[in-house]
């Protein structure tokens, strides 16, 4: 019986390890060839020449990283400004139009956003935000809104009502109760919202592809795909893989560091794909 159990556990580990390796291999292969393949080094061995080629690609890797970082930062900031106070308002306050607004915000989930990109493109042109990182961030804030709003509303709702009551007894208004008493309790929700907003905006592809036309404003995903398209039909695989690794590193780092908060996004009941 004991032998059978040990055998079972061993088999389970073997199966799990094989699958885990299968999931990690594409990344590992890409990292490995970015350091060793197609001109990684003058002597044909290990080197960083692929990385220096991608640094000089187009408007420069630095420009693309800065653009992507700026969009991600603006998106995260915008999502916080919109969803944190609104989460509190929807969880705790009564005000006219509350239910209509909540339903409209959740309706964003029901309308696949690829279908409203075309009017958004026209609209951003009208308000002078065509080919603009600010306009792109604005659209990304809208995309993240349902998930973030939901997450923040649930975070505030999960705090005990006695907290508000005590704050009011102590002479707080609804605003000071929010700032001093409730907000500190929602930090895990805030981290989750930030993480999702960062990953989504850093990796977004179709929106910048449509909204950005000037190469110097491209974000990393768009710049890398245009690198893939190559010049004269030749694909520089080494530079491409180096670029993919550079763009994946911040996401992998945050993801591993904040994994607990990522999983929170699933268990809280708010989810968007």
């Amino acid at each position, binding site marked *: 019986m004991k032998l059978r159990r040990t055998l079972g556990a061993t088999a389970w580990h073997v199966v799990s390890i094989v699958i885990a390796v299968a999931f990690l291999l594409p*990344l590992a292969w890409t990292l490995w060839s970015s350091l060793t393949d197609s001109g990684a080094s003058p002597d044909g061995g290990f080197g960083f020449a692929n990385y220096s080629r991608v640094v000089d690609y187009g408007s420069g890797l630095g420009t693309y990283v800065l653009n992507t970082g700026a969009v991600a930062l603006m998106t995260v900031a915008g999502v916080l400004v919109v969803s944190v106070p609104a989460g509190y308002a929807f969880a705790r306050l009564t005000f006219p139009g509350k239910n209509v607004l909540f339903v409209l915000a959740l309706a964003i989930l029901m309308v696949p956003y690829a279908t409203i990109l075309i009017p*958004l493109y026209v609209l951003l042109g009208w308000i002078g935000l065509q080919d603009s990182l600010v306009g792109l961030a604005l659209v990304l804030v809208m995309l993240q809104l349902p998930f973030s709003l939901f997450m923040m509303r649930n975070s505030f709702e999960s705090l005990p009502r006695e907290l508000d009551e005590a704050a009011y007894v102590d002479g707080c208004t609804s605003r000071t109760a929010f700032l001093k008493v409730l907000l500190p309790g929602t930090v895990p929700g805030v981290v989750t919202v930030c993480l999702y907003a960062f990953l989504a905006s850093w990796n977004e592809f179709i929106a910048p592809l449509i909204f950005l036309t000037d190469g110097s404003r491209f974000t990393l995903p768009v710049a890398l795909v245009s690198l893939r398209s190559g010049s004269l039909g030749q694909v520089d695989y080494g530079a491409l893989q180096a670029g993919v690794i550079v763009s994946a590193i911040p*996401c992998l780092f945050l993801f591993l560091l904040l994994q607990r908060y990522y999983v929170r996004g699933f268990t809280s009941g708010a989810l968007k794909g």
Partner: protein
Amino acid sequence: MVTLAAPPDATPRTTRRSRAGTSAHLAEQRRTGLLFAAPTALVVGVVFVLPLGLLFWMSLNDWPLIGVSKPNWGANFAGLSDPLFVKAAGFTLVYTIVTTVVLSAIALGLALLIQQARPGTALYRTAFFIPAAIGISSSALIFYGLYTQPTSGLNELLATFGIGPVAWIATPAGAFWSTLLLVIWRFSGFFMLILLTGLQAIPDEVYEAARVDGAGPMRTFWSVTVPLLRPSLALMLILSVTGSVLAFDQFYVLTSGGPDNSTVTLVIALYRKAFVQYDLGTAAALSVVVLAFLLVLNLAQFALLRRDNTK
């Protein structure tokens, strides 16, 4: 693409009549509520409701990328019978069905594999869902390299087993299955996590009761696990179907819709119509049709999900 929750007005009323009940306090709350919800109202209004209205208006206009638009009423919708669109719709349908079936099966297998906490579980779980951190376009670039570079790790591994060179994305069927492999890699861990959340919400007592009643593992799975997992399964279904119907990044990057337009999805057709042929009106009409289709599908699945939730 869905949320599980009680409606917003379901928050319990405070029972104690403290300052919170006075009319001055209620007025103060109302002002704060309006102020705090204002940014949401602004974003929802300007970046969602307005473009949605504009979409319907555009679909009724001859709307070139540059130049003056003018109403042409139903003409854009008549243009949707273009064989390229019909083919794209068919391809998207097949892709959606195959992807959803394969992904669901794999995600369920992975979730069942690691649902019990044992040494190593957390590590395996992380390995399974790490691709979810990487963007879809970056994932597609990774697989583009693995498929098309003769010296890639994948092709060299296969060569050591005497397999290859494989055509991968060079044939229509190859392009389809190669993209599916990429999608499995990128999304099965994500869907596994949804199911895992559902599995862990099933109380141990239920399994205990099934065991006492003499149910074997298969019986327990079909009579206990699957019914209690239905909300999570339905959520996975909605996300997979919606995501697949809207598939763009993976095909745009990996296959560019080729070879011979064999992997053109609805959104790729839409993108080409708008930004390659500069015909925004027809693209808007196509958007309206896709939107209506998904709305009906989502509402149907949503109703299913809600019903299971209240069980």
